[in-house]
């Protein structure tokens, strides 16, 4: 909740950005062009094959919709869930995945952008 409260959304001529304190969480143009860090988050999402359970558009399959869950989970809860997994429910632990663990903030930023509706397409590319 606190994270949400601290967050500010700005719309500047097709420019979306979400700020956490002074640092923007992600920057997106035209719905699918993102900053370099958020792009890393998308690449981590893809490499870890999250889409197999959460759907290619994060809409939920055997795993829950991340569009919805990221509205509820705090950043700390998100990190804990990804790191340790929720094995009984089928969520693996990504503790041993360097790709995921070293990009966990970026992954959070990407998914938050999807959940906020600011990133309108699941597949993103680098902004110029």
């Amino acid at each position: 909740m606190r994270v949400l409260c601290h967050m500010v959304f700005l719309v500047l001529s097709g420019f979306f950005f979400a700020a956490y304190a002074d640092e923007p969480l992600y920057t997106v143009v035209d719905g699918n062009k993102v900053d370099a860090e958020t792009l890393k988050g998308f690449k981590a999402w893809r490499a870890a094959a999250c889409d197999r359970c959460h759907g290619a558009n994060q809409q939920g399959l055997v795993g829950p919709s991340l569009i919805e869950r990221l509205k509820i989970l705090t950043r700390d809860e998100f990190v804990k869930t990804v790191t340790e997994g929720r094995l009984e429910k089928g969520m693996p632990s990504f503790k041993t995945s360097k790709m995921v663990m070293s990009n966990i903030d970026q992954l959070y930023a990407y998914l938050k952008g999807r959940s906020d509706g600011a990133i309108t397409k699941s597949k993103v590319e680098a902004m110029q």
Partner: protein
Amino acid sequence: MRLKFCYLAVPLVMLAVTGVAQANSDVEKKIADPANWAMQAGDMYNQRYSKLNQINAKNVGKMQVAWTFSTGVLRGHEGSPLVIGDMMYLHSAFPNKVFAMDLNTQTIKWKYEPKQDPAVIPQMCCDTVNRGLAYAEGKVFLQQADSMLVALDAKSGKVVWSVKNGDPSLGAVNTNAPHVFKDKVITGISGGEWGVRGYISAYNINTGDMVWRGYSVGPDDEMLIDPNTTTTWKDGKVQPVGADSSLSTWQEDQWKIGGGTTWGWYSYDKALNLMYYGTGNPSTWNPAQRPGDNKWSMSIWARDVDTGKVKWVYQMTPYDEWDFDGINEMILADIPVKGKMTKALVHFDRNGFGYTLDRTSGALLVAQKFDPAVNWATHVDMKTGRPQVVSKYSTAQNGPDKNSKGICPAALGSKDQQPASFNPSTGLFYVPTNHVCMDYEPFAVEYVAGQPYVGATLAMYPAPGGKNMGNFITWDAGTGKIVQSHGEKFSVWSGALTTAGGIACYGTLEGYLKCVDAKDINKELYKFKTPSGIIGNVFTYQHKGKQFIGVFSGIGGWAGIGLAAGLEKDADGLGAVGGYKELSNYTDLGGSLTVFALPPK
């Protein structure tokens, strides 16, 4: 004393010898009696045909539900129960419960529920299914998800032996049913999406000792391939495979994480002493990372059941670019092929081609599309045995980070594991199929032990031109032609049954058990809505003189995964499994068995 010992020893040795011989004849005897359903396919040929005819084309319309049973487990229920005499043995999806039910009293005689590490759950690709049990000589065999193969005493449910078949921490888990051939229980492995190097293993049914293990890829000796005596189809004839037939088709050590898993249904020809099965996709799904034919992933295998030695092998999809897993069942049937009676092997592959081979030699006889939507290849070159790939649909030629669109079939194939049936009285194969296409975008992925190793993003949707995502078809394997096609709204993900009563039965994802006229499958003779979508296989048995037809319902599996959590709206139009979204209007989770019979006279 000494003499006495000698006298004792002789009958003991004889007993041991006959014990081994009986292992085969026990199952044979049980499958010969159509009152039983003693193997997952009803027999060793994978025919899924029953001689029972009490329920037939004339009276099946009057069929009613006789009894039902809940397994108490959500998620997908594949396979079917077994029936041996007065006992029925049922299994469930993870946690892989086993129930022994006395059919006389309909009471649970014993129940077994293994303790398994929940870490296995997220490692099971495409739902936590289990495809059922095997039976032989008073033992029930369960292949647990965590790779433990367990023999249970059929009378008490007590564990007789158990053996670890894989390393689940690396993603080597199990979904397949074990199969008993002779005195061995044969089992495979899953984990092609975790970079597991596939293998098939034979264990002694009495002790659980491993007798042999044959890998799908790698050095000749580890595959149990003899370069001189193991043959394959090359240049229009059967020829020895030659040395390093697998190693030479991989770059460096990629084969060590090269896939070729083995989670389908196996068959056995006693006269040839050969068992048949298929191997799955090479790992990863990004073809750019594994140039070469990736032998012997995506292949049909014939192994000597006693030694595991490979008699012949044929690769259907060299250098897979679409996840056309080759694990679907091999059906053995003696049929005319192009006018000549043939000991045939018939296989409906994920890649959309129906193959007929000479099962004695591995000669390729027929390879034709069993869904007209198939577009990734124009045809199979009968001389080389290779599919002729269409560049537009080649995810390798288009390259990583490029989305190849409109590929038919989708990764789940024109047919997945749901087994077909052969009806000897019509000479036709009754095949549950998918009619689904996809977009496929491969990307570079790094291997991390125990982590998913996929490397492609997919979107699946109904094939163009039609609203149906599935068909129930009849197929002439001698000519490679569709005889009839009966459209279904969703993929037909349920194993078919045909009987001497002139009917063919299958389940649908909406949850209907349907029986059609075997001579005209467009004539629906019976349908009943079971509690959940059906991905289980239809089976039949006779008890106290009365025939029953049964099927597990319990939606799940790859086609049904979208239901498990409830789909959200598709944000970008085409969602993965988007086409199946509407399924939630028809059904929800829940594993149960529904058994049908004719009403009392």
